[in-house]
């Protein structure tokens, strides 16, 4: 590279703009993880017996894994050992009643916080065409448009509410895609998860609005362990989005979530994530969220489709592989991803497509951006079972480097047990050149805008898949997260 590589290095001083703390009184469990804590969470949620039993099984399994030191070590990430006894597993803002039913009962400070985050919840200001479930630390504090959706049979509610009101659905589907025994973090989540969203779209219903969950970690020393379950019954369609942010803190905080999706015959689920957890201090790398997430969808029915789109700009560590089990014949799985690692961030992310049914198809478009000292790893698996006659996969995996202290790594795993399968894989690595930035500047475009323009061009295939409003958000987010990367 030419001598002005060094000019590129300075784009890395952006401030995290979502790092504020909301002053609320909270009801927190003591630190530590044991059966008592799990009982306490279950009691607080007034859960039926089957839930407590399931949690306990999960916890015992996790203990076994911990004893075997089975915390996954294969990812390309480095972090100090997590002390699981030094975490608060339940923290909820105090309220008079459990699970507020109307917005008037929500602490105004919390409403203000969501407004600051760009997700106003009250009737006058709320986003048009988007129903929001607002999860604050361990609980859901408000869900909008619930009644309107219920009229057409759609259930969109906090997980804890679903446990009360639709226990049969929860019982049927909970753990059916990601069993508690799936992995270390999934076991931990199953034991202690406190809330999240539950969605059921009935047969033949096309959900008329975007459904969104906004996760906010606020309390110090707490972890967030949410669980989301989406069921799309035959011939239904839903587009769901999640967003997340957290305050700026010196200490790492753990976020270990589980998401399960089930698509029945001819159903489609579009799941989009804009992840913007606190990434840690830009200079020292101190603090930030450890994001260990298990997301998996099952295309159970014929012609069903599950599509994951993710824009991962935050978190100190990201470990997640949204996957699709393509069980129904002709089912389709998609994964569109932009993962950014700036400063000292580390991301090890990708997907797994498991082809079981005939003529199943999957597409993987993964864009990794590394800047500063960031390390970005794509890890993707394509598995074609013997039964998957005529299966097809297309994978495209592109890495973009900004500056010369960062790294990009790709680990594609391919396993085909059926000779009729067609698998295509393309990969590229490029550097944002000073030439490109200079070219745009020469036309009058300021340097920072030039960089974000280049990055947006690089991510276009993925942004196109996001719902319109969020595509704009994602673009802004990316440029803010890269502010300071060119001097």
């Amino acid at each position: 590279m030419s001598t002005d590589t060094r000019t590129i290095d300075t784009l890395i001083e952006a401030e995290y703009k979502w790092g504020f703390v909301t002053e609320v009184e909270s009801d927190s469990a003591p630190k530590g993880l044991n059966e008592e804590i799990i009982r306490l969470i279950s009691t607080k949620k007034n859960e039926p017996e089957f839930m407590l039993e399931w949690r306990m099984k999960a916890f015992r399994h996790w203990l076994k894994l911990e004893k075997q030191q089975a915390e996954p070590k294969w990812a390309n990430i480095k972090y100090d050992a997590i002390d699981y006894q030094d975490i608060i597993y339940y923290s909820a803002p105090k309220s008079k009643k459990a699970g507020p039913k109307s917005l008037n009962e929500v602490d105004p400070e919390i409403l203000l916080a969501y407004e600051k985050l760009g997700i106003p919840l009250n009737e006058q200001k709320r986003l048009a065409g988007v129903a929001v479930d607002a999860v604050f630390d361990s609980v859901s504090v408000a869900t909008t448009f619930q009644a309107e959706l219920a009229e057409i049979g759609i259930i969109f509610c906090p997980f804890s509410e679903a446990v009360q009101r639709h226990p049969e659905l929860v019982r049927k589907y909970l753990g059916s895609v990601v069993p508690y025994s799936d992995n270390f973090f999934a076991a931990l989540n199953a034991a202690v998860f406190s809330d999240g969203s539950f969605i059921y779209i009935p047969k033949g219903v096309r959900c008329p609005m975007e459904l969104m969950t906004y996760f906010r970690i606020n309390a110090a020393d707490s972890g967030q362990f949410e669980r989301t379950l989406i069921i799309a019954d035959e011939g239904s369609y839903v587009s769901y989005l999640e967003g997340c942010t957290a305050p700026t803190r010196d200490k790492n905080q753990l976020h270990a979530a589980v998401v399960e999706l089930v698509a029945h015959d001819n159903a489609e689920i579009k799941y989009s994530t804009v992840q913007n957890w606190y990434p840690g201090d830009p200079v020292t790398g101190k603090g930030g969220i450890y994001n260990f997430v298990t997301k998996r969808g099952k295309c159970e029915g014929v012609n069903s489709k599950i599509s994951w789109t993710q824009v991962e700009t935050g978190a100190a560590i990201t470990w997640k592989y949204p996957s699709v089990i393509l069980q129904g014949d002709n089912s389709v799985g998609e994964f569109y991803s932009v993962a950014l690692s700036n400063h000292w961030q580390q991301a090890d992310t990708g997907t797994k497509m498991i082809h079981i049914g005939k003529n199943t198809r999957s597409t993987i478009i993964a864009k990794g951006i590394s800047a500063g000292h960031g390390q970005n790893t794509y890890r993707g698996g394509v598995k074609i079972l013997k039964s998957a006659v005529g299966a097809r996969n297309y994978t495209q995996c592109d890495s973009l480097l900004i500056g010369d202290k960062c790294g990009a790594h790709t680990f594609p795993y391919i396993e085909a047990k059926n000779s009729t399968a067609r698998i295509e894989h393309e990969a590229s690595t490029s550097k944002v050149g000073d030439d490109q930035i200079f070219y745009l500047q020469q036309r009058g475009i300021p340097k920072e805008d030039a960089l974000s323009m280049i990055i947006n061009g690089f991510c276009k295939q993925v942004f196109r898949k996001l719902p319109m409003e969020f595509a704009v958000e994602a673009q802004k987010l990316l440029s803010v997260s890269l502010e300071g990367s060119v001097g």
Partner: protein
Amino acid sequence: MAMLEIRNLHVKIENREILKGLNLKVNAGEVHSIMGPNGSGKSTLAQVLARRESYLVTEGEVLLDGKDLLAMKPEDAACEGVFMAFQYPIEIAGISNAYFLRAALNAVRKYHGRKEMDAMDFLPFYKGKMKLLEVDESFMTRSVNEGFSGGEKKRNEILQMALLEPKLAILDETDSGLDIDALRIVANGVNAMRSPDRATIVITHYQRLLDYIVPDFVHVLVDGRIVKSGGKELALTLEEQGYVGVETEARALAVAV
């Protein structure tokens, strides 16, 4: 006052002196041509005027309408009206020409405190310029220079110039890689912009282009200095005799000094 005044310009790239005391004055309304052998520093001059930051100016000054051009950032120089048509235009994936050009135009307008142009006003304006340069409308939606042929890239440069209407346009070997028809079209685009308050610097190897864009002055750049200046007939002399003659003359001159 000259629009552009370059005084005793010395430029280093990676510790090697490339421009060694260059002087040039360009008045509004004039077209100047700079010719010279490969590696003599023509592109270096163009890039320095466009404020490429890795090119180190060690001595001298450059004034654009009396303002210190060398103190400007590249985007500010562009907004002040300096446009360079790149010898090797750059490709940018995923960004359409229309998006890019509107962003550029609006950046310039914003710099001058003028209202930004919305897509509704921009499109007809853009299409008009495309017509002038006989460019297919599919250009609009294609990514900037990506997969363009050499000729298409050059045409796109002139299209951008026509749209941004710079005060000072510097064309760096825009003619290379163009067939005769394309050359004529590009020249038309440049000539359409000639006006008493604009100036153009045409860098070229070949006299051919100057048949279409007739310069007021021709300068010969050899080894980092302008060694000879003259009218448009100088280009013809060069075409016949090559640079060798001028070079020897210049060397003799250097020794004498």
